[in-house]
């Protein structure tokens, strides 16, 4: 399936901009997002609801629907810009080289088609298999994702399966054609905790077996710590911090990342009083602050933060940060104490 490995990163997004257009307003859902996923690695994208995580992932597959539109940037997949591809070329990539698993297993499968038909469809489209061959392959896929008695299951309809089973089926569909990149948009949010761990383990195992890159969207920092290699923290349609997972958890730099870390309940000590929260709420896309988008909620914000948008800075290790505190222009307290519990 692959071309010669002339690329270093399976996916490289540069300054991606996706907007939604109302009659007289442009809502920038994704505003200048950049990140890279090294080959066979897992990138975690974290952020609150409405930070543009899902829109970013749908943009990669170019599945943004009206009134949304990708306005600018580059999405380099194996070194080629997906935004320059024709629709028919994109269709060959979708489900074949880049696959996606969605948040809602209960509604993501077609209620009127059997499991076998839905998995088999990928084989039939991308590998031109016959109905019979596709069904045989579907049974193999169900086996791979650990569904018992797969021969019976391929003939069943989604309503006959539990949520965890359906998510396994979604994974089977996504992995059918051995993709180079798997996008998992909160694959475990709708499942209960024990099933969550199983699904994440499954994705991890299959990643090792098949050697694909994974883009894991989540708002669960625990999941990130466990299964990601690099992390992009998103806030209001922008990446505010991008770092390898160790650095991010050891020395979070952006006040928003620090806030997120502080709001996880520590598991090794009793909590006295309330958990820390990041005060305020995500601003609505129609009323974005002119300066740093996090400034209204940031405890360290100065006049500079409120008036001017900081650029994304890259350090010598390739880690990135979008915050005035980490520039020479910073006009606030230099020696701040940043502590994270634990």
């Amino acid at each position, binding site marked *: 399936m692959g071309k010669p490995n002339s690329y270093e990163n399976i996916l490289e997004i540069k300054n991606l901009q996706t907007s939604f257009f109302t009659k007289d307003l442009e809502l920038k859902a994704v505003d200048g997002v950049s990140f890279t996923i090294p080959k066979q690695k897992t990138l975690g994208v974290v952020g609150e609801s409405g930070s543009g995580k899902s829109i970013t992932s749908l943009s990669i597959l170019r599945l943004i629907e009206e009134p949304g539109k990708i306005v600018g940037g580059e999405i380099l997949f194996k070194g080629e810009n997906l935004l320059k591809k024709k629709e028919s070329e994109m*269709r*060959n990539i*979708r489900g074949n080289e880049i696959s996606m698993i969605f948040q809602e297993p209960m509604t*993501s*499968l077609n*209620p009127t*088609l059997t499991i076998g038909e839905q998995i088999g469809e990928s084989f039939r489209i991308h590998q031109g298999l016959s109905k019979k061959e596709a069904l045989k392959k579907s049974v193999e896929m169900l086996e791979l994702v650990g569904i018992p008695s797969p021969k019976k299951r391929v003939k069943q309809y989604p309503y006959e399966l539990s949520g965890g089973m359906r998510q396994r089926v979604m994974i089977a569909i996504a992995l059918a054609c051995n993709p180079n990149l798997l996008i998992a948009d909160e694959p475990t949010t709708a499942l209960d905790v024990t099933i969550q761990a199983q699904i994440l383990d499954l994705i991890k195992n299959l990643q090792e077996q098949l050697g694909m890159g994974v883009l894991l969207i989540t708002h669960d920092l625990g999941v990130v710590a466990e299964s990601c290699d690099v992390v992009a923290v998103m806030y209001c349609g922008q990446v505010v911090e991008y770092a390898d997972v160790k650095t991010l958890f050891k020395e979070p730099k952006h006040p928003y990342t620090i806030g997120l870390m502080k709001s996880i309940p520590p598991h090794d000590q009793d909590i006295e009083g309330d958990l820390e929260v990041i005060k305020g709420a995500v601003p609505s896309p129609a009323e974005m602050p002119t300066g740093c988008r996090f400034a209204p909620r940031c405890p360290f914000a100065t006049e500079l933060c409120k008036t001017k948008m900081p650029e994304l800075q890259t350090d010598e290790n390739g880690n990135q940060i979008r915050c005035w505190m980490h520039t020479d222009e910073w006009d606030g307290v230099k020696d701040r104490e940043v502590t994270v519990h634990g």
Partner: protein
Amino acid sequence: MIQYIVRRILQTIPVLIGVSILVFSMMHLVPGDPAQIMAGESAPQEQVDNLRERLGLNDPLPVQYFTYVSNVVQGDLGNSIRSGRDVGDEIGSRFWVTVELAFYSTILAVFIGIIAGVISATKRNSFADTGIMIVALFGLSMPNFWLGLMLIQWFAIGMDLPSWIPFLENTSWFKPSGWGSFSQIVLPVITLGTGSAAIIARMTRSSMLDVIGQDYIRTARAKGVKERIVIYRHALKNALIPVVTVVGLQFGGLLGGAVLTETVFAINGMGRLVIDSISARDFPVVQGTILVTALLFVFVNLLVDIAYKFLNKRIDLD
């Protein structure tokens, strides 16, 4: 499946009993003496008494009902007062004419309605969508007897068109009356089917729009499925579930609507039989026709319920 069909048929029994009671009471709900009404106002008393005796109207009501039902079950719908012929025979051939009319109209309505609805939904807010929905609104609001008359005027009798319009000097392509040949069938079927086509188009559109927004459609697109297949394989099958219900109900409406259409096009069907019998106060025929129509309606809805099973796997019939 067979078990379901049998059970479903048994379930129609209470409905049929209800219908039979209604049909039976019809004669007695008419103000005045049914025998007098049937015989005519100026009929001599002796004739009225004879008629009353013949129809068993002197018996107590429950006995009359029982006699009526046991006759009906044996296929005896009574005799027409007008012609003296067996009501079953009177209805006989006309029944199939009306069923054909309603059936062709349904096919036309389903065909046009679904195609128009799908185009409308997939090209939402476009010129085509607005156009189709405006036409549908017209189709819906047009009384079908008027549409029938207009169609006869335009396409059967022909209009005095100015001579400079090419091809259209003679518009009498179809026949304005009767039933049987293709040229006779076209206009009544269009007349009767238009309203249903409009309803089905609107229903298909809203149902499709709802389905296109579903998560599993996004899944299909993310799989790399072609848009045409997304629409016809993934979306339409789901969108048809509510449409099938409407089609079933519409068929009943068409049987009723056939009364007007048959009158306009002088088609010798059940609808016209009812109209003629009502004006002649021929109660046995009216009763028989209504009973048969009700039976047909119940049967069609049984078919609709079975069609569900094929469309929606979540309805567990057994």
